[in-house]
Every structure is written in C-alpha cells, then in structure tokens.
C-alpha cells in the first residue's frame, strides 16, 4: 500500500487497538483510570487482576457493550486500526460484527446448532442457504466442533455439554469473520478438561484473530496469552510479554498478585 493516508490509518506497530487515557465511570464510580494500552494484532492478550478491578469493563469497551449499561460513561479514546470507535459516526452494530465476544457462561440461543452459527449472518441479511451452509461448516471446523456436531446440526444447541456450548459460541462469533474475539472468563464455568479444549482452541485461533481474554486464573493467563495486562482498582499496573510478567514482573504489586501474596 503506497497510499499515505492508508499508511497513517494502519497501525505502524501492528496494534489493532490503541487505548489512550481511558476513564470509565459507572455513575459516579470510576471503574477505569487513565488506562493506556495497545493490543497487538493476532496475539492473545490476557487481562488479569482481582475481582472488580475493571477487566470486564475494559473488555466491554472494545465492542461498546458498555453502551448498554445504564450510567456508564467513557472518556479518552479507543482506536481500532486507527479509527476512533467511540466516534459519533461509528456504526456500533457493524463494530460488533468485527469484534466478536464470548461470555463467561456459554449462552447458545435456544435454537439448533446450525441456526446458532447462522444467526449473525442472517442478521446481516444473508439468506442464501448455500453460503450459510458453507460458513457454518467452516466456523464449526475452526471452533473444533465440526466432528462432534456435524451429524446433529439441527439438534437443539442446549443439548450440548458446557464445553461444546462454549465452542459453539466461539463458532458463532467466528462465522461473522471478526478481526477480534473478546472473551470474558470463557472457561470459568467449565471443568478442567473442557477448559483445556478451549485453551487449545484459543491457541489455534490466534493465528487468524486477535484475542483478548479476561481471566481469573493466573495460570490460564500464563498458559495461553502472549501479552498480559495486570489491573488493580481501575489502574493498569503493568502490561508486557506474558513470559516477562510471570518471570520478572516489573511492579511489586504484580509480583504479589501473581504469586498469590497480597498486601
């Protein structure tokens, strides 16, 4: 690309998100304080920190799910590939197709597996069954669910096990070909085996997608993420390569938290 504007817009450092001086308030309560962080593309970034430190709040800023929360106010900028997503002109609905999200508890819609995966596409007005069928298959394959699900595509998704449901939710997000997948404690409702499967899947997905994951489990952050950001009481205390953060953290608060001591 030789076009200079495109060059300026595209991020030089390969960051998909650039958050600058972000303050988030719930009514009077300030949940995030002057957070500045870059999220590199095609890597797994983990947010860790004690309960209530603002991890989920920041995560929800990336696809503007915070818009749905009464009294939530935002200051500062978040740029996605150079454009401010909190700009007035941003089409939130479109943003959310580009920034997929997976929730703590698996939440498949009470429809068939097929319809679950096709849901996002249908909302985009895609009706052609040929396309739908192709995308559903691809998405399920990427989510490592195809083998288990291909013979029951029209069975109710609620019949799947918890781990399978969570993979279905991932497939559902993938179907829209997002650039980013946000995950808010995606395995905290699952048993260790299902968790391990999801972690493997994340490992696999990061080749194609940027993944941001909130987790309560420090060992999970350690295992699967490339970058780790540690939050405390609304402050971003430290962010860096995961191997650095878990080996030689720069901040003693990080040190104390990840090694299970505190205060």
């Amino acid at each position, binding site marked *: 690309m030789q076009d200079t504007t495109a060059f300026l817009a595209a991020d030089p450092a390969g960051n998909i998100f650039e958050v600058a001086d972000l303050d988030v308030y719930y009514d009077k309560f300030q949940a995030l304080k002057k957070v500045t962080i870059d999220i590199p593309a095609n890597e797994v970034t983990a947010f860790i920190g004690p309960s209530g430190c603002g991890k989920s709040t920041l995560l929800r800023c990336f696809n503007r*799910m915070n818009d749905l929360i*009464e009294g939530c106010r935002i200051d500062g900028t978040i740029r996605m590939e150079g454009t401010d997503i909190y700009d007035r002109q941003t089409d939130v609905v479109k943003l959310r197709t580009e920034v997929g*999200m997976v*929730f703590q508890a698996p939440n498949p819609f009470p429809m068939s597996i097929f319809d679950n995966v096709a849901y*996002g596409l249908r909302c985009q007005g895609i009706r052609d069954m040929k396309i739908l069928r192709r995308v559903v298959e691809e998405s399920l394959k990427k989510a490592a669910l195809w083998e288990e699900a291909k013979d029951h595509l029209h069975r109710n998704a609620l019949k799947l096990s918890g781990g399978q449901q969570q993979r279905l939710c991932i497939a*559902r997000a993938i179907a829209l070909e997002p650039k980013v997948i946000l995950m808010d404690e995606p395995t905290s409702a699952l048993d260790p085996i299902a968790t391990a499967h999801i972690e493997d899947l994340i490992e696999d997905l990061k080749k194609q997608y940027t993944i941001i994951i909130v987790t309560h489990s420090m060992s999970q952050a350690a295992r699967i993420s490339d970058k780790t950001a540690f939050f405390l009481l609304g402050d971003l205390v430290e962010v860096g390569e995961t191997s650095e953060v878990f080996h030689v953290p720069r901040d003693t608060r990080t040190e104390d938290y990840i090694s299970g001591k505190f205060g």
Partner: protein
Amino acid sequence: MKTLPIRTSYLRRKKIIDLAARAIFLLAGLIAAAMIVLIFVFVAGRGIQVFLPGYANAQNLGEFLTGMRWRPDLSPPVYSVLFIVINTVITAFGAAVLAFPVSVMTALFIVKVAPKSLRLFFTTVVEILAAIPSVVYGVFAAGSITRLVSGLAAAFGYTTYGGSSMLAVILLLAIMIFPTITSLAIVSIASVDRNLELGSLALGASQMETNFKVVLSAAKSGIFAGLILGLGRAFGEATAVSMVAGNKMFGPTFNLFDTTRTLTTTMLSGLSETAGVDYDIRFSIGVVLMIVILITNLLIRYVKKHIGGVTNE
C-alpha cells in the same frame, strides 16, 4: 470429647416434635391434593344423576350431548348442550386470537422496549387489569362494550339485542384474558437470560432483532403457558360474560352480532331453586366445561411441542 452441654432429654423431645410436625404437613398436602379428585367425583356424580333412570324427569344423555336447543321454559323442558359448546369454543378462541398477539407485543414492549421511566407505569397498568374482578368487567361490558357493539352493528345494518352479542363476549373475554397472558409473557420474557441477549447484540444484531429472534423464542414456553391459562380463563369466565351474552335459546351462533350462550352463562341463567332437573343439569354442564378445557389444554400442548422446528430430543 465434646465440651458442649447437650441434654439428651432435649434431643429426644426434638425427635418427637419433628415426627409430629411432619405428619401435620403431610396431612395438609394430602387434603390439598385430594380436592380436585373430590371435585370431579362429586360434580360428575351429581351431573350424571339426571341421566340415570331413577331420576325424576330423567334426561337423555345422547340428546343432551347432540341437541341444539336449550329450552327450560318448555314442558317438558329440553336441555341440550352441543351448540353451547360450539359457541363457547368460538368465543374463547376468538378472544385468544385477539388478545394473544397484543399480549405478547405488550409484554415485549414492557420488558425490552419501554423507556425505563415508563416501564413501571405499563407494568402497573397490566397488573391493575389483572386485578380487576370479573364482575367489574361485566359491568363495564354491559355498560359500554354493548353500546359500542350496537353502534357497530348499526353501521353494518344489523340490529342487536341492546348490544348483547357474540362480539361483545369476544371483546370482553379478550380484554379479560389479556392481562393473564401478558403477565405470564412478561415473566417469561424478563427471565430470559440476559447473556443470550448480550450474545446476540455482540453478534451485530440490533436490539429489536434480538428481541424478536432470540428473546421471544427463548421465552416461548412461558408465553404458551400464558396462552393456556388465558384460554382457561376465557372458558371458565361466568359472571361477566353472562351480563353481555344474551343467552340465546338455540344455536350455534355464527353471527358476531347475534346473541349467544356459553356453558357458564347457562349455568348462571335463571338460578332460582336449588333442586330439580333445572338445577342439577348445571352440574352436567360443569362436567362438559371441564372436559372442553381439558381437551383444549392437550391440544395447545401438542401445538407447542411441534412449533419452532427445533427438536428437543
């Protein structure tokens, strides 16, 4: 060794009290459960009585079930119920057809669409509608719906008996079952997992798309439970309906502006003495009414099971 001063006498007493209390609770449960059986036995018993040979002025069961006239004024009186059943079904379903979509939309509006400041207001409206006793609806219907209907009839070139008509019954019942269906729909829509909704929004669906595609389908079973309840109320409603039905002596009625007669209005009509065929025959109608309700319930359950295309097995 324990250092706590625990008295064995207390423990023994505790055991005895426990057993006694449990027995009392069990008894209450049994009584409550036995009632429905007793109702059936006693009402049906008295209802069948009039068809038994020993009964003075015994009625013919076949004629009762298949005839199209209700003439207690003749002598000998003629009691037959088929046209009443047909009328009842028409009015009840007519009311459901009117009320159901409005109810569901209203519930959706209240839970998901209404601005927060108005939500309480609309909820209260529905709750008040639900709480208004049926006689009050009856008075309202007799005083205003009938006028509306007779005006309408006049516009179409029909005459009515002071507005008492099938249409009035349908409108009245629709109004009466609306809060029933709506409140159940509200509950089931409100209890749809917020995460489902967020899941849909996060997939780039708009709020309204989410409401119609995800929320409603997740609330489906509660909404249908509401429909069943509403139909039950429509079938069983007596006092209010009998204020506007007009109690036609034969039928069935298919003309919206013509008077009609339902099972319940029949049971309430000309209630003077408490003995004799004219009184006992009401028990027979009661049995018919319960059977009609039962069949309808089964029907709707069947429909619900096969709706939506997702097999649950």
